[in-house]
């Protein structure tokens, strides 16, 4: 006899599946039932853009080999939701865009293959800001996703559907993607854990490109351990991605064994401005006090170029996007709308296929790369980006193990509340720096402000995710699992 475990942690699901106390099929049934219970469909939270119940029920099996292995897969029997810009073979991959409406990829992302090989079940495709451009999941062709703890508010973005799938208790783990904070910001808004690995730590083969010098696949978890197991599973070199690093991957889920005693936690003053909500500051102070009591040294540090991150990011990312998105022209796949000759077809397809935010960023990116403006904008931004990265290098070289900051300046805002593009861009003010510097970062729940979840952010030096997880495990033990729930 088996028992369904609708909201189990990844570790408990794996253990119960391996021991035969439950089956993958029973777990998938429970997750589908949970999705119905929380009204995850289009008229409700609008979490999924594709969720094929019958396919999942028919294919929710693990091989006999996986069950009899002396070491069962780290995610055996665990359903994992996938952001809609990560290629899967069964469900469509639309990037939340009309231009890829109904497109089913002819190949599978390496991260999805690794999930399956570890025994996980890729569980539907989640809603997102179109082509990952946004901070609220309001820019989707399929309508906005709602924040499970506060349905009148945004879940953050661009990976809002994945964050909501975890926050609603449908799956313990989901994949998202990060370009400027698209995992950490929604994790903070939804009261869960979100990790952006070091640039190069995770293969991007099968991740639809937005800004190639910034993009990384990221992981959401209901707990720190869920996120650690998810990252351990998908990380590592991939010959199909020339930017993936040739480095061994530590067992992040064992990072809880390392004490934070003696570790140096940096508190960068630029992330704690006078204007920061005092209630947010209080939550951060409580977290830092816990770390101090556990034996960590809290050290005030400075990252002086932090305030330039948003202008730099919103030059570099649109510039790269304008190039990457040139491929969506109606020729080889996706939407095609006829026009006057070849040029007319290009223009009609792209104008009808892209939404307003994507169009705006393509225009900005094309402008800053165009003759006469390249030096003033793009080249300048890339130089200032070096200064931002040098800030991190200097601080970590001085002996700081991990930095601790707020993830966002505010909790989740109401749906429709922000219409000014630049005001929306400022949502990334504390997160974009990590992408520009390529360092790993994560958000974890630290409590509530005004009844809404808020997150604390941990950042480490390149490929030092393990240190970040050690601190996160310790903080979670001190604050309680789901401190914002």
């Amino acid at each position, binding site marked *: 006899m088996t028992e369904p475990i609708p909201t189990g942690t990844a570790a408990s699901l794996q253990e119960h599946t391996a021991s035969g106390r439950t089956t993958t099929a029973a777990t998938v049934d429970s997750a589908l039932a949970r999705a119905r219970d929380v009204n995850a469909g289009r008229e409700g939270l609008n979490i999924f853009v594709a969720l094929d119940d019958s396919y999942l029920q028919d294919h929710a099996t693990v091989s006999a080999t996986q069950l009899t292995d002396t070491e069962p897969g780290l995610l055996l029997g665990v359903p994992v939701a996938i952001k809609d810009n990560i290629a899967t073979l069964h469900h469509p991959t639309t990037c939340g865009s009309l231009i890829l409406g109904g497109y089913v990829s002819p190949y599978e992302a390496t991260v999805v293959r690794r999930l399956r090989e570890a025994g996980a079940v890729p569980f539907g495709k989640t809603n997102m800001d179109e082509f990952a451009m946004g901070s609220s999941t309001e820019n989707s062709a399929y309508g906005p996703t709602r924040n499970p703890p506060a349905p009148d508010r945004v879940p953050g973005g661009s990976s809002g559907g994945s964050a909501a799938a975890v926050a609603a208790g449908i799956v313990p783990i989901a994949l998202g993607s990060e370009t400027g904070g698209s995992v950490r910001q929604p994790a903070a808004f939804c009261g869960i854990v979100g990790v952006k690995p070091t640039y190069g730590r995770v293969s991007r083969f099968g991740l639809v490109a937005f800004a190639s010098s910034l993009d990384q696949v990221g992981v959401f978890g209901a707990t720190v351990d869920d996120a650690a197991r998810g990252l351990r599973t998908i990380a590592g070199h991939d010959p199909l991605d*020339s930017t993936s690093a040739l480095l061994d991957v530590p067992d992040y889920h064992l990072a809880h064994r390392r004490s934070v005693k003696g570790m140096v936690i940096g508190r960068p003053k630029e992330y704690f401005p006078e204007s920061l909500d005092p209630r947010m500051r209080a939550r951060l102070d409580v977290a830092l006090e816990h770390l101090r009591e556990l034996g960590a040294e809290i050290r005030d540090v400075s990252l002086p170029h932090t305030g330039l991150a948003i202008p730099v990011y919103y030059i570099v990312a649109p510039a790269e996007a304008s190039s990457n998105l040139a491929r969506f*022209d109606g*020729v*080889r796949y996706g939407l095609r709308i006829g026009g006057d000759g070849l040029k007319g*077809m290009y223009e009609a397809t792209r104008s009808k296929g892209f939404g307003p935010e994507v169009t705006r960023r393509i225009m900005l990116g094309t402008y800053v790369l*165009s003759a006469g403006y390249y030096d*003033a904008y793009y080249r*300048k931004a890339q130089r200032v980006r070096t200064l931002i990265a040098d800030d991190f290098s200097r601080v970590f070289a001085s002996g700081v193990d991990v930095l601790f900051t707020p993830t966002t300046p505010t909790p989740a805002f109401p749906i429709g509340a922000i219409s000014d593009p630049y005001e929306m861009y400022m949502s990334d003010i504390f997160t974009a720096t990590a992408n520009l510097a390529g360092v790993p970062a994560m958000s974890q729940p630290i409590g509530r402000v005004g009844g809404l979840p808020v997150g604390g952010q941990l950042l480490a030096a390149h490929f030092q995710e393990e240190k970040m997880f050690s601190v996160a495990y310790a903080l979670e033990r001190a604050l309680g699992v789901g401190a914002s729930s």
Partner: protein
Amino acid sequence: MAVTIDDVRHIAALARLGLTDERADLLMTEMNTILGHMAVLSKVDTKGVQEAIGVGAQGLPVRDDGGAPIPLARSLDAFAPALRDGFFIVPRLSTHESAEEE
């Protein structure tokens, strides 16, 4: 360096985006507002600073310039808007307007 409506039209043509007059006007306003926030960068002293060329400690390792094509799980006609004999079909170029369409 204010963005003009002619700039918007020129950039849209480069980006292969068709814009209505109303949309072009709105984009001109939005681009000027957003780029106005970028002006702060011009005041930063970057003399002698290298442009960022890689963000990871590993840099960008170069792989072998070769290898087999990635095998596809389904054929081109499963996703191509128009295909004939294994080739993607597109409308004729405007320089060949006198030729028969497709």
